[in-house]
């Protein structure tokens, strides 16, 4: 393997877009966590050990609606369960790594650095687990720093909570809009909303959110299975049409093309060796 003269710099270059995109989100997250009642030290701590935009925004929301700790932690656990998925899909690149390394790697894993690392592992055969860990850490420090600055801004500003709270709602609305790719997902979302209103009012507690999430996701999953085995042509499985030429589709195309190109190059190299 060729040794890079300044590996840390090469990795930093790869992590840079990720770090830059963390700054505004981290600032916003810091402001909201501060509004939710966490002091700057705790904002720093939560950014380092939870390290996930979605989870920290969830904590801020639950704090502003005065949910008890136990419920916040349960919700968080559910939200973070998706990392079981992401972590598992990276795990076969870490087969040769020690348990201690996997522990550290898992600790700083999140959605965005997963995306970067997964792509690098899939397309660059010189990409090592330690490079991947470095990407995680660059992003982690940027994220924690932005959060701390955000919480300091938050403490020096007087903020209208009704309006700032809507930042979270807008963020969640964006995430749902981006995730609804099929009619069945849309129905699951509507079901979750209806159940959430019902159980929150019926139980007079934010526990309604937990129950709604569990019931709706399980219903969506079971419906998906049943429909695919009983009526594979059902219109429920149709995709929801997105606006054409969106950034995401273009990115996906580029990624696929990039991977195909790399694979071809690797094949050529193999032939040369023979």
């Amino acid at each position, binding site marked *: 393997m060729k040794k890079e003269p300044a590996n840390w710099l090469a990795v930093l270059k790869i992590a840079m877009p990720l770090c830059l995109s963390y700054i505004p989100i981290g600032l916003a997250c810091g402001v909201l966590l501060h509004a939710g009642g966490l002091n700057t030290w705790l904002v720093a701590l939560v950014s380092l050990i939870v390290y996930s935009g979605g989870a920290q925004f969830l904590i801020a929301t639950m704090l502003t609606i005065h949910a008890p700790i136990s419920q916040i932690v349960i919700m*968080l656990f*559910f939200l973070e369960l998706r990392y079981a998925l992401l*972590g598992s899909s990276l795990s076969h690149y870490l087969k040769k790594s020690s348990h201690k390394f996997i522990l550290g790697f*898992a600790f700083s894993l999140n959605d965005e650095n997963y995306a970067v690392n997964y792509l690098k592992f899939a397309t660059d055969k010189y990409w090592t687990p330690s490079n991947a860990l470095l990407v995680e850490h660059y992003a982690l420090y940027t994220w924690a720093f932005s959060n701390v600055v955000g919480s300091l801004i938050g403490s020096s500003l007087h903020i209208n909570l009704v309006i700032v709270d809507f930042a979270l709602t807008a963020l969640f609305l964006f995430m749902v809009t981006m995730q609804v790719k099929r009619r069945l*997902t849309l129905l699951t979302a509507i079901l979750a909303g209806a159940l959430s209103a019902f159980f929150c009012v019926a139980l007079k507690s934010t526990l309604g959110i937990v129950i709604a999430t569990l019931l709706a*996701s399980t219903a969506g999953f079971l419906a998906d299975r049943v429909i695919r085995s009983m009526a594979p042509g059902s219109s429920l499985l149709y995709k929801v049409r997105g606006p054409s030429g969106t950034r995401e589709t273009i990115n996906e195309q580029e990624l696929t093309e990039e991977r195909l190109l790399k694979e071809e190059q690797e094949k050529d190299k193999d032939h040369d060796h023979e």
Partner: protein
Amino acid sequence: MNDLALVLLAGVAAFIPRYFPMLFFSKRKIPDWFNEWMGFVPVSLFTALIVKQIFVTSTYTFSVGNIAAMISAVLVIVIAYFTRSMTLSVVLGLLLMWALTTFL
């Protein structure tokens, strides 16, 4: 003190699903049903939160009185759908909410 406990427990809740499956599946294959189920969790959770914030009051009664939030929410969905930009959705959403609560 309570806040510190929350942050530490949150750290534990964040760590468990990241670590154990990664360790476990470095030897085995992920079951399909788990993949599929997890695919429905974020959408359900986020919608449940949105509905709670817009339609359920702090005293846990159902209300369609938050007109500013309802109008802003619909417009944020439209903005998100066409721009696919998180920053635009949040910033324009905040501006809309500010304008609607000020002028309604």
